[in-house]
């Protein structure tokens, strides 16, 4: 099953592309990410606490970036092992298109669970995957969007 989404980011394409390769930013966007570290030029290890309803499992996740075509597109993939809970892998093809007021980010993602979570949770995998994808990219937009500049020319009344 392919999951797709589209987001608008108020930043130039180059800046969005750079942010998508920044482990610090990825760590703040991956739902449940406890820690993330770079282990290779395009590889990161993350500790992710996944929580869906009653299920709560810690996944040791290897995240990799491939098909790099800056600043237009790349593939973000992850493979997590959740011990007794099972494992999951997924990837998202991300494309960036320059727009007048920033960048349009589109993604197509696929998820493949295995082990116990796939056995007992098959009816919930679609919804869960969609939620993780939406959460990740909407947080990403939130994290990278610059704060609006403070209004200029406003007298500082606290000084009085």
């Amino acid at each position, binding site marked *: *099953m392919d999951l797709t989404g589209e987001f608008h980011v108020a930043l130039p394409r180059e800046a969005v592309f750079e942010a998508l390769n920044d482990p610090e930013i990825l760590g703040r966007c991956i739902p449940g990410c406890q820690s993330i570290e770079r282990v290779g030029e395009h590889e990161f290890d993350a500790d992710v606490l996944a929580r*869906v*309803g*009653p*299920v*709560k*499992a810690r996944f040791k996740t290897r995240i990799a970036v491939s098909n790099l075509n800056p600043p237009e597109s790349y593939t973000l993939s992850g493979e997590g092992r959740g011990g*007794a*809970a099972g494992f999951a892998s997924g990837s998202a093809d991300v494309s960036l298109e320059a727009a007048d007021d920033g960048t349009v980010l589109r993604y197509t993602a696929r998820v493949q669970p295995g082990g*116990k*979570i796939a056995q*007992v949770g*098959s*009816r*919930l*995998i*679609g*919804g*869960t995957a*969609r*939620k993780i994808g939406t959460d990740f990219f909407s947080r990403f937009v939130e994290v990278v969007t610059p704060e609006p500049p403070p209004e200029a020319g406003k007298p500082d009344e606290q000084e009085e």
Partner: protein
Amino acid sequence: MYEFNYHRPGTLEAAAAALAAAEDGQVLAGGQTLIPTLKQRLASPSDLIDLGSIAGLDGVRREGDAIVVGAMTRHADVASSPDARSAIPALAALADGIGDPQVRNCGTIGGSIANADPAADYPAAVVGLGAEVRTDRRTIAGDDFFTGLFETALEDGEIIVSVRFPAPRRAAYAKFPNPASRYAIVGVMVADTGSGVRVAVTGAGDQVFRAGAMEAALGGNFSADAIRDASVPSDGLNEDLHASAEYRAHLVGVMARRAVAAAAAG
């Protein structure tokens, strides 16, 4: 199952305190989802706080024109309650169709809605009947209670005390169950409340939702004919081995018409 500390408090206050003091505490109601999850080692809370010994959390009672169901009331007790059956037969019938006899005799309304499974039956009743959820802190409108896939408006450590269902003029629930689990592939609660029609759909999306177009059509003419051509968009609906999103969208119309016909027939 992993090790955990087991608590069986006698009051809501003690339960809230035990929950707040626990490193990673989890409330246990009827355990019909939680216990299998623990057995599968898909969760490992440090502490389980069992609400089973707290007096006053179970039972069905009338409150004016409404039915109040205690959070720890078993589905079977709602199904057989004379008050529920006379004031809101659709609610009793819904409870009677949840899961299997074990689930109905162990599972509770509070546990079901706190878990907020997207295919559970009770969310359709909470939203479709315009209920309100009472907790140890506040009252939450049914429309605001479910906020996403397995997500609710409950705060950390907040415990459901009861659910108050105002009696509608007429209502019915129709579901297309998964034949193995009896979870709703699609379930629709239709209620003519006296001040409008509510249509709540469970099983189809990542959370229960209201079908506004059907509500408007039924408001003018409460008959299955009024929603003969109505359906819901399939965008974003659940897809699994049992039913595609398009099939679920179609089932929403079919179940809604069955529920309206049943409600209109009284």
